[in-house]
């Protein structure tokens, strides 16, 4: 049933329409011409032009209607069909390369995207829960200037926003987070490169293995585009904030912060490390390189809801 105003429109007499009656596809107002001009600029990939479509009688678009017709001819037509054909709503697909997730609602899509793809470090493809932590991560992991300065002064920021304190080592920062900000001691703090060997023996932290992953990736030559696959399904390579094996973790971790180890990086970044690297694609090409994002990541892949 239509809205009342539509019904009115249909039964009304002549409906006069104000406006241009020009119908020729070639005629154009000045403004139209201007746009056409820009469209014919070199390199313009936009090629849409209105088109009338002729559908041949065998076209698949006509299938349902044809079936209806023949059901009627064969006396199989039911006036009120019991099985109503279902109208389907379009699904949403994550377009990040390598991520093949599909969602039935926009909300699910947004949640997925925000959890896994928004704050991604281009160098190591880690996904961070927010922009600030991404900044800190990049600074501590991929900025050689930071590494140099950290040898002489307190550089490791407290992860809690607004605190402002800085520490000499990640351990100090961790202690601060536990003592002052009441972080659970068994919270998944990451290890620094230096600490790696001493902590290897501790079995309670399954996440130690993540260090290797870090190294691998940081030295990897991955291209920026492959993001999601690499990060989404990593149950065995947990680092506190950086990889999300599941979305509930993502939700939990969104509140907390991480202990970010510094990694000596070597040649890959300059002092002008990207300031706003929220999205991988914002990182200048100089910092991202190669292919190899897949190296070191062994985890579930595929569709997730």
């Amino acid at each position, binding site marked *: *049933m*239509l809205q009342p105003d*539509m*019904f009115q*429109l*249909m039964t009304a007499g002549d*409906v006069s*329409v*104000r*406006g*241009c*009656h*020009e*119908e020729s*596809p070639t005629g154009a*107002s000045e403004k139209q011409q201007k*746009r056409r001009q*820009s469209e014919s600029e070199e390199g*313009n*990939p*936009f*090629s*849409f*032009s*209105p*088109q*009338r*479509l*002729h*559908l*041949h009688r*065998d*076209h698949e*678009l006509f*299938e349902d*209607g044809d*079936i*209806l017709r*023949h*059901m*009627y001819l*064969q*006396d*199989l*037509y*039911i*006036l009120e069909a019991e099985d*109503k054909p279902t*109208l*389907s709503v*379009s699904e949403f697909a994550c*377009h990040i*390369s390598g991520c093949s997730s*599909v969602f039935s609602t926009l909300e699910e*899509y947004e949640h997925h995207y925000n959890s896994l*793809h928004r704050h991604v470090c281009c160098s190591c493809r880690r996904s961070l829960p927010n922009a600030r932590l991404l900044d800190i991560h990049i600074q501590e992991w991929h900025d050689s200037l930071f590494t140099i300065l950290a040898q002489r002064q307190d550089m490791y920021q407290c992860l809690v926003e607004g605190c402002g304190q800085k520490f000499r080592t990640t351990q100090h920062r961790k202690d601060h987070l536990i003592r002052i900000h009441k972080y659970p001691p068994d919270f998944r703090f990451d290890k620094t490169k230096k600490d790696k060997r001493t902590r290897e023996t501790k079995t309670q932290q399954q996440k130690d293995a993540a260090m290797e992953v870090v190294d691998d990736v940081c030295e990897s030559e991955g291209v*920026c*585009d492959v*993001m999601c696959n690499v990060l989404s399904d990593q149950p065995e390579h947990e680092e506190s904030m950086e990889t999300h094996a599941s979305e509930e973790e993502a939700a939990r971790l969104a509140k907390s912060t991480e202990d970010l180890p510094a990694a000596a990086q070597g040649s890959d970044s300059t002092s002008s490390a990207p300031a706003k690297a929220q999205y991988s694609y*914002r990182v200048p090409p100089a910092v991202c390189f190669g292919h190899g994002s897949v190296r070191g990541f062994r985890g579930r892949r595929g569709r997730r809801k």
Partner: protein
Amino acid sequence: MWRLNKVRYKAGRQGDSLEELRLKRREHERTLRQARRDRQLVSKRLLLNEDEEQQDITMDTTPGEQDVVSLVHKLQHSGPEKEANLKALSKALRDPSAQLTFVKLENSVHLLVGLLTSSNAQCRLQAVQCLHELSHSPHKNVAPACLPATSYLLTYLSGPSTKFSELCLYTLGNICPDSDAVKEKLLAQGIIPALATCMENQRHNLAVVEAVGFTLSQLLQTKDAAVKIIPMVLASTLPSNLLSVLTPDPKFGLAPAIECAWCLHYLTSSSKDNRELLCRGALVQCSSLLVSLGRAVAEGNKDEGLELLVCPVLRCVGNLLFSCPVEGLSTQVGDVHLVVALCGLVQAYLHTQPALAREAAWVLNNLTAHSSQFCSALLTLNLVPGLIQLLRFSQGINTMILRILANIAHKKQEFCIQLTQLGLLSVLCATLKMVDQEMVTLSLDVLFMLVVSSPQVAAEFVNQGGLSLLEAIQYNGEGDRRRRATYLLEQHLLSYRL
């Protein structure tokens, strides 16, 4: 007002539960779909006698092949009970295996042909009834056996008896798709001119018109129809007569209009050049009918079977629009009532017959592609918000609707601004994330047109977080989509980037 007077439903055997019926129906539908995909979709029609119409068609009992043999025997040796025997024979021939038996009997068909020309009117009627039963046979070999009778059937087409003419017509219609040989023979025997004459003479007799329509539609669906049949049809009086019957008669119902509309659909969809039909006023007629149908549907008209007519008429309008010169558009389709009707049909059928809604959207695309007038009408009559709502639905509906919106945007900047004011930008931010790649590309196309139309639109898009969306496509998309996103970001949104 418009009814489908006779809609028979093969209820199946008695004792079938509702669930069994449903299963059977679904099975039938599956078979039909497969047949269509194999380009083998053919149907036959069975004309029932009045006393049969309330009953089930399929009969439980098989009269037995012996009956057929003995009846034929009796008929061959004349006798006073010819009529009764013939009637019994026609009933017996309802059964498929009896049909097979019959045609295998020597001279059986010739017997019938002889009776077709009998001086006894009842005998003639019963004889043609027998042939009709044979023509409806599911066995491939049976219907061609009726060939010897066809020249007679053709001559009887315009006879005085409605029932007789109907039976002749449906018999011919049933057998012509069965084999190429049959079809060739019928063409050679002049079936097209015969149909044209019949239609011309019997225009007032809607039952016959319906039968002619059916038979013609069977011919038009055959494989080489575009080459062998359509030119002849177009050259005859058939198109004009088909058009004149299009508007359904309130008393008789929808059936004749349905048949004629399907004929017109086969005519318009087999070739891209429909100037011949346009000259005969086909688009004028069909679009005005579509407006009436749209009105009926909008009124909540629950007329049974209306979609059986809406479907072919929609298709005719859609394909005729393709051939219609743009300058003459408004003289052909009238004013904007058609636009309203089409939007109404899309909404009305969206949930019950999504395919029909999609076809209506297709017609709307063809209407708006090269016409500022109709694009403007969509805006002025406030039909665009309703269209935007439809962008959520898949199965080809959203892509078609987006094309329509793109048609509007393409016309002028002012339309772009209006579209933006109606909230199209935020919806595009959603459609850019859809699974269907064609949707994504089209969305980018529309976005481009909107963004270049004015700086305000560009700013609005950026406010809605559009930049990161485009960047995601730029870095992760493929080919067409990546190029479009890149171009948009670098050429038109550069100043908005951080």
